[in-house]
């Protein structure tokens, strides 16, 4: 035989004798029996933090012979408390998925992708980065990342080392308005509800039963069981409804009017906490003057919530105070959905201020968070702070500085200020703002690099795609967890890397930095940095590798009026900086931008309990559940369906100014008439994700490209849509 070896792949010491001796016991059946007998010997446990959403709940993975076998929630981790949710269980199988990226990819001139080596990928990206900096300066580069323990650290360090200040989180499509607003009113980006002692809690649009954090669901369930009155203000009876005493169906984006009317009742009926207001707030008089106009009767015309109901809820909250509060919310109405999301969030905190519940037992709590101390190893010193301000800082001055607004980055890519963009664990092109705008922007850039585990819509439009290993295959930096108690958690390497040509976050950024000429700032591994950080709080890295989550020194939380870290040091009903940004400095009413005309519908989006935005839609088991139960359907009220002659399961054409798509309808009594609900996981455009591709429709496709004034959130629900039945 000539021209080709008999064995191209299998090499080794296989001796003829060994081959000849290997006999019947090689059979699959014999091996299975042997495995069943020996399985107990190879069982190991290792901790990690889930990557199914940004909660990063602690988990414990069991492996058998090195293979992932089961997951369970960490008993120690305060978000898990022994449980993880369905999306957490599902996401883990991504480690073995047939649709993972397994080697670096380069897009060719013809638009196809081809595998390339890491060396070539780093070298080519490094060369292009250097060319962009030489021609346009480092400020023409940006990175967008969906925060993960290592990713948020390395993204910022990489950009800053290059000399660019342009580092953005996903927040403008999530909770940017809320976190920015709270920073101005209470001096913190979030707060918690003291469910264990609460008499009444009101949710504004948020649903623990859909955007699941196990401990939150448990707290809510326990509170409901204990008799706490739970109120859900939402145009949809969401999946937390089983815990709710009251469902307040409201016109979408009018929650601000509802909250201002609550304030009106509390002030006009003299039900507010005078002592708290006088001693701990600024701007009350101006606020009260604005709230005076916001009567329940006025609010009824906007919200469609009866004035009597608003009055009853306000009086009940006052009666329960200080063990009553508005829950902090997260995304959507309070986070990024409307022109008034920033003020809606401010108004929610104003209600709590009037109730005097800040820091009180059963009220709204401001707790502290731990962090690593100063590191004495010069390798970890920060690179010089870039001189320029981040793009967007001027246009959207109210945006939380640590998050920025990626909408500004998109605008800069469109108008040519940006020339190169990196994306880490971020499917911006599908999830953040209008996808057509992203496509246009990415097409204009000289360099687009995406780091991900799968070929997302953003990766699909990139010049280079760098495959990260899945979270179970990598160690990451510590995650610091605040609250009444302090904890630190960490991802450890549960599984050996499955695909040899994938790398962990730190390896990828270290390689990029070296190729871009800034390797001097990346002379350490994530494990070395983690060990140094943990040492500052007295935790040995070997301990956390074993335990996953460790409780830190008791911060000695105590009830009582908290310190508000605002400019004034007090709760702010009025903030000058907000006025300087061109908005009303005083918390007051702002109308939503788009109001449906006759024949049009409001549309709202939201998570489902088994999915996390677009990230999990291609997971085989989770996608199968979606298809089994037709979870991609558009929710419509039974009243609307009847008037349009639409039956459950019918296909409709959904249209906005931006897009038209067809989708099946779920007819339900759980929607307020005039409002539609669309789960925000579907309508995938990446043919590389075969299970998710073209399954359902995506809300972002229907939304105009726009930004909330001052903050820069994407205004994810500022649109009106029409529905037409598609005749068979």
């Amino acid at each position, binding site marked *: 035989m000539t021209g080709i070896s008999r064995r191209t792949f299998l090499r080794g010491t296989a001796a003829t004798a060994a081959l000849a001796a290997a006999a019947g016991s090689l059979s699959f059946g014999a091996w299975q029996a042997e495995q069943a007998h020996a399985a107990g010997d190879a069982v190991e446990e290792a901790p990690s933090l889930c990557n199914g959403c940004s909660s990063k709940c602690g988990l414990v993975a069991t492996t058998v012979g090195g293979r*992932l076998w089961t997951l369970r929630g960490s008993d120690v981790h305060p978000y898990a408390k022994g449980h993880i949710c369905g999306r957490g269980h599902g996401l883990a199988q991504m480690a073995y998925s047939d649709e993972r990226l397994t080697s670096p990819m380069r897009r060719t001139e013809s638009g196809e992708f081809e595998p390339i080596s890491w060396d070539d990928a780093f070298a080519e990206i490094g060369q292009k980065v250097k060319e962009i900096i030489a021609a346009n300066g480092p400020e023409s580069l940006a990175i967008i990342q969906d925060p993960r323990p290592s990713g948020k650290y390395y993204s910022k360090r990489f950009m800053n080392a290059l000399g660019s200040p342009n580092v953005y989180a996903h927040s403008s499509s999530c909770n940017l308005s809320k976190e920015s607003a709270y920073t101005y009113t209470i001096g913190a980006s979030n707060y918690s509800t003291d469910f264990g002692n609460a008499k009444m809690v009101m949710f504004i649009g948020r649903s623990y039963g859909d955007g699941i954090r196990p401990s939150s669901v448990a707290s809510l369930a326990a509170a409901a069981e204990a008799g706490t009155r739970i109120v859900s203000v939402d145009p949809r009876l969401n999946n937390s409804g089983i815990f709710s005493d009251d469902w307040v169906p409201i016109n979408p984006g009018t929650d601000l009017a509802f909250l201002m009317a609550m304030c009106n009742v509390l002030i006009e009926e003299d039900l507010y906490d005078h002592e708290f207001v006088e001693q701990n707030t600024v701007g009350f008089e101006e606020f009260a003057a604005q709230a005076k106009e916001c009567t329940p009767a006025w609010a009824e015309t906007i919200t469609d919530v009866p004035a009597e109901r608003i009055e009853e809820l306000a009086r009940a909250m006052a009666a329960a105070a200080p063990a009553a509060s508005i829950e902090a919310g997260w995304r959507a109405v309070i986070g990024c959905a409307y022109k008034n999301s920033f003020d809606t969030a401010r108004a929610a905190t104003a209600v709590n201020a009037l109730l005097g519940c800040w820091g009180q037992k059963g009220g709204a709590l401001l707790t502290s968070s731990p962090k690593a101390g100063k590191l004495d190893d010069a390798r970890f010193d920060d690179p010089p702070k870039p001189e320029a301000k981040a793009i967007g800082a001027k246009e959207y001055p109210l945006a939380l500085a640590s998050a920025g607004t990626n909408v500004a980055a998109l605008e800069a890519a469109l108008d040519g200020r940006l020339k190169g963009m990196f994306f880490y664990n971020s499917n911006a092109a599908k999830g953040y703002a209008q996808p057509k705008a992203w496509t246009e922007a990415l097409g204009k850039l000289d360099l687009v690099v995406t780091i991900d585990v799968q070929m997302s819509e953003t990766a699909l439009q990139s010049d280079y795609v760098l495959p990260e290993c899945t979270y179970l295959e990598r160690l990451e930096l510590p995650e610091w967890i605040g609250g009444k108690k302090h904890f630190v958690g960490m991802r450890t390497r549960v599984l050996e890397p499955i695909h040899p040509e994938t790398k962990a976050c730190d390896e990828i950024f270290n390689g990029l930095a070296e190729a871009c000429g800034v390797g001097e700032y990346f002379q350490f591994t994530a494990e070395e940095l983690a060990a140094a950080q943990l040492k500052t709080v007295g935790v040995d890295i070997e301990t956390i590798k074993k335990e996953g989550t460790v409780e830190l020194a008791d911060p000695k939380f105590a009830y009582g009026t908290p310190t508000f870290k605002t400019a004034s040091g007090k709760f702010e009903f009025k903030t000058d900086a907000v006025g300087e940004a061109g908005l009303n400095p005083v918390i007051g009413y702002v109308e939503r931008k788009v109001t449906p005309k006759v024949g049009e519908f409001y549309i709202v989006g939201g998570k489902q309990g088994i999915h996390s935005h677009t990230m999990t839609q291609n997971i*085989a*088991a989770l996608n199968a559940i979606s298809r089994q139960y037709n979870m991609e359907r558009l929710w419509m009220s039974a009243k609307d369906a009847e008037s349009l002659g639409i039956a459950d399961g019918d296909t409709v054409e959904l249209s906005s100014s931006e897009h038209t798509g067809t989708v099946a309808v779920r007819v339900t009594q759980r929607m307020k008439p005039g409002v539609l609900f669309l789960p925000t996981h579907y309508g995938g455009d990446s043919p590389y994700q075969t299970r998710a591709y073209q399954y359902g429709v995506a809300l972002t496709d229907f939304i105009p490209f726009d930004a909330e004034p001052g903050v820069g959130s994407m205004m994810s629900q500022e649109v009106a849509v029409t529905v037409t039945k598609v005749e068979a």
Partner: protein
Amino acid sequence: MQNASFIVNVIASVAIMFTRQSEERYRETCRSEAWALAREAGKLYLGDVRKEGLRPLAMLEPPTWEVRRAVQNEVLTAGMPFSALPVESLYRPWSAARGSNYGAQRGLYLGDAAHHVQSIYDRIGIEVPEAFAASPDHLALLLELVALFIESGNDEAACSVATDHFGWLGAYDEALETRAEKAAAARLFDDEKKAAVCEGVAHLRALVALTGELALAVARPGAAGFEQGRVRGASCLQPSNQQEYLAVCGDVR
């Protein structure tokens, strides 16, 4: 009279076709004497085989490099829209062992099949190349393992591997068929690309059909006629009956 060397050489030339190759390597493979043997094996095994719209023997001849390149990049590369990697674990339930959260799932690497063949490699001192770390049950490796045992005269082991690890070829053939249908309608591709992918997939399917016949020949009771490292050609090369075929290879035909 055919002998074991014939089977081994055919396996060598077929196996490499299931992996990505450089242009130089591909042209070398197509020119080699081994491929001439594969052609001969095709005539012997696939002469009467028909599948809807596909006559494997007619498609067994290696396509041009341009077609091969298209099918390598679109079908034999992981993570692509039309990927269909010939890896056994992807077409079987992940694990039959009790207690696994993921046991019934398909489409996952490193299932029971992979761990079983890895145990065989370990036992006989074989190293799996790093590129195949996630797929020790890749069809190319499985074929070479069978060939190794045949060469060493261990008919029983060759029969065991052939019996245990080729039953997924029918599912793989279905996957390839589906990919070709989808590629033909893909918005991403121009007409030339569509035609190239479809032609390349047809060649892969012919290779799968031939692989199924080879596996069956090796897996036949009585070691399919292997004696002293030689194959009793005529008996082993008789077309198999449908029931026998399904038991070993699944519905490849």
